[in-house]
Every structure is written in C-alpha cells, then in structure tokens.
C-alpha cells in the first residue's frame, strides 16, 4: 500500500480505529493518512464503513478504540474548527438562503458589511444569487445541497468532508455539485469525499481509498487504484460486482 503523505499542508491520521456493535465489526482501520493536495475519494460498496470513518475523522463519533490526529495534534475543538462537513441530506435552518450563510458568518465574528459581501460572493459562487431572500427550506434538494456546501465553505475550512453528497440528485444537480467541489479544491481546500459511485470517483479523485467490510483494502493515486488495483475484491467491485 502506498502512502499518501504530503510533506507540507494539513494531514489527518487515523490509528487503530475500531467500532463494533452487537458482535459485528463496523470499522477497523489500522492506519490511514490523508493529506494529498487533490481530492481524496473514499470509495466502496454500501455498508463498507465509509460514512462511519468520515464521522470519526470529523469528531462526530468516537471510536471504541483508536485515535485521530490532525497535524500531529489530537482532534480537539480548535482542530475540528478547521474542518467542515456536508451530509447526504442537507439540513437547512428555517430561515432564508442568505440567513443560513449569515448564521455561520456571524459566528466567525464578521461585521455586518463584511458578512453581506461574503454572502454575495458565496451565492454567486454557487449560482444562487437570485435566491438570497428565499426560504432555504423551499429549495430543491440539489440547490439545498449546493447551499450546504457554500455554508460549509463560509467557515473557511482547511478540509471539507462530503458524505455521498449527490446520491439523491439527478445528473444536472450532480454536475453542479461536482463543479463546486472542484473549484473549492483548486482554491486550496482539501477535499475528502465518500461515494459509492465509481464514475464520480473517476471524475473527481486525485487519490482513492477503497473500503470494504469496515477496512481499508486499497489506497493510492486514482489512476492506479481505479485502473489497476492490487486487491482482487476491489477489482471485482470496480468491474461492477456486488461485494458482500
């Protein structure tokens, strides 16, 4: 297995993470390092433990044993503040589109004028300029997911986690989301995205981590993992077989 260590920049390291429930092993990651400049896609069949791993990396869940470290430090409030996450289904506050962004910007202590400018920039970035005053709950799922990404970006994170953000979206909305994610990546935000869609992995990933049965079974540069994986099960998965 090849390491993905990037000598400079943010690095996340998971060590000996294990979660078991009812005698069943849900997560068992001996060692994982994430930190490459391009988007890292965590790929695998449903139930592989991808979302669970993401939540551990973001500090939403505590593993039974093991630790997560970011830049060599434990995952405390300060370190987590450098992260942001977008979930499978967007959770919008019951206020306007602009209001959702304002909520986050206020917490960062920005003055009113600054917030207004920043909101305008973000909305333009996501193609939602005309929707500022609209109720966020009245957006379509695709638009709401775009807003969720914008809201996450408003916190100016160093790493953005995304948990299957387009699994419920049509191709048009999916394309808009992927474009937004790539733009963020070129601006320097580290992307760590979970998906079970192999095509999406091909489109977005610079590096790929493949998970099966709670374990990391393969990782490396995208071209290598996707076209010529070392692991036989991964090969069968990429060929379209159902993996149990």
């Amino acid at each position, binding site marked *: 297995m090849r390491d993905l260590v990037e000598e400079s920049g943010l690095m996340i390291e998971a060590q000996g993470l294990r979660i078991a429930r009812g005698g069943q092993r849900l997560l068992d990651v001996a060692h994982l390092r994430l930190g490459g400049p391009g988007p890292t896609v965590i790929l695998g069949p449903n139930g592989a433990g991808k979302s669970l791993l993401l939540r551990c990396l973001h500090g939403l869940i505590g593993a039974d044993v093991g630790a997560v470290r970011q830049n060599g430090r434990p995952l405390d409030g300060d370190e987590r503040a450098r992260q942001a996450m977008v979930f499978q289904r967007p*959770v919008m*506050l019951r206020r306007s589109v602009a209001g959702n962004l304002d909520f986050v910007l206020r917490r960062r202590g920005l003055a009113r004028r600054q917030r207004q400018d920043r909101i305008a920039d973000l909305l333009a970035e996501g193609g939602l300029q005309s929707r500022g*005053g609209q109720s966020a709950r009245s957006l379509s799922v695709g638009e709401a997911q775009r807003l969720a990404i914008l809201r996450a970006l408003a*916190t100016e994170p160093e790493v953005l986690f995304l948990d299957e953000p387009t699994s419920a979206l049509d191709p048009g909305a999916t394309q808009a989301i992927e474009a937004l994610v790539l733009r963020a990546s070129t601006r320097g935000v580290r992307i760590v995205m979970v998906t079970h869609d192999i095509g999406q992995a091909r489109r977005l990933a610079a590096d790929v981590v493949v998970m099966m049965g709670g374990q990391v079974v393969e990782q490396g540069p995208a071209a290598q993992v996707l076209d010529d994986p070392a692991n036989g099960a991964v090969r069968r998965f990429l060929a379209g077989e159902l993996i149990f």
Partner: protein
Amino acid sequence: MQSFAQEMQAAFTLILAGDSELLGIVALSLRVSLLAVLFAALIGMPLGAALAVGRFPGRRALVVLVNALMGLPPVVVGLLVYLMLSRSGPLGVLQLLYTPTAMIIAQVVLVTPIIAALTRQVVEMLDAEYAEQMRSLGLSRLATVPVLLWDGRVALLTAVLAGFGRAIAEVGAVIIVGGNINHVTRVMTTAIALETSKGNLALALALGAVLIGIAIAVNALVSLLGARSRAEVMAHA
C-alpha cells in the same frame, strides 16, 4: 316566563351593549391568562429545551413527570397555591391571596408543564435532525438550544397557544386563589360559574360564547401574524 331562546337573546343584547362590567371582566381574563402564559413560556421553554438536549441521570423520569403534570387538575393547583399564599401558609406575608397576581401564579403552575412538555417534544425532534450538522459547525450542545428554539418557532407557538387555551378556560384554580371578588378578581370563567349558581343559565351561556369568541380571536390574530411574517420572507425573493 321567558323561553330559553328569549333569555339568550336578552343576554346577548346586554353583552353587546358593551356593558362596562363585562368589559372589565374580559380585560382581567386576558390580563391574567396572557401574563401567565408569558411567564410559563419563559420558564417552560428553557426547561423543555434542556430536557430535550440534556443528558443526565433521571432525565427520562423527569420527562415522564413533566408529561404527567400536563394533566394537573386546575382545582388541585388552586388548592395548593391557596395553601402556599394563605396567611397561615409559608408565603402568607406576601399578602397575595385574592389578588390577580395569585391567579397569575396559579395559572403559571398549571400552564408551565404543558409548554415544557410540548417544547421538549419539538426540540427533541429538531435535535435529531440538526445535531450532527450543528456539531459540525462547531456549536456546543448549549449553543444549539437557541437555534432549535428559533427553528421550531411555529410548533412552539402552537404550544404557547395550547397553554393559553388551558389558562383562559379554567375556573378551578382562579376561583380558589382569586375568590371571585367583584371588580377585583372576577374573570370570565368565574363569572360564568357564578351566574350558573344563580340559575341564570342563559346569561352564563352568553358569557361562554363571548369567552369562546375571544379564544378564536386570539388564535386568529396569531395565525394572521404568522401568515404576514411568511409573506415578508417570500417577498424578498
């Protein structure tokens, strides 16, 4: 002897003539119940939110208790508050018995569990939906509470209206701690009780109709304000 219908008509005429005594009674009813609901909300909403979001030993038992207290009989509340405020009671020195303040206190006791229990349910449901996202955005559990309360404002308003409905309609509590004293602590429900005990059933019913009308008016007003604020939000699009 008049027929019942004729009596009711006579009663309504009296009422619609804007009898100043009646206006005083209506004003006092509204004052007591609106203030009671306000204080009950100030106590009950944080309490309900804390129950929803907090994790501490005995939490589940407390939830069951608060839910059960929604069914407190008004007359029992009246009796308990009377014993507290009586000159022979622990708070007798405050001389609050037979005043509107005592009535407000009794109704606060009655209404707070309702608002707390309904708030808990609303906040708990929203918390299930929002918790991960809020934590991701860096909010502590405590900081999440105001967000949940604001986002649940529509359902919480219904909880407040439920509390108001309970307060404006009860007689058992206010009659014991208020004493139904003319011009001092007589409200709509105690006036209805009095007229019934005098056998003036038509007048009592007419007063009852006025009470229902007021309850409808309050709810309609709230609904109107809700519709207006929604329209304002949409108009910015």
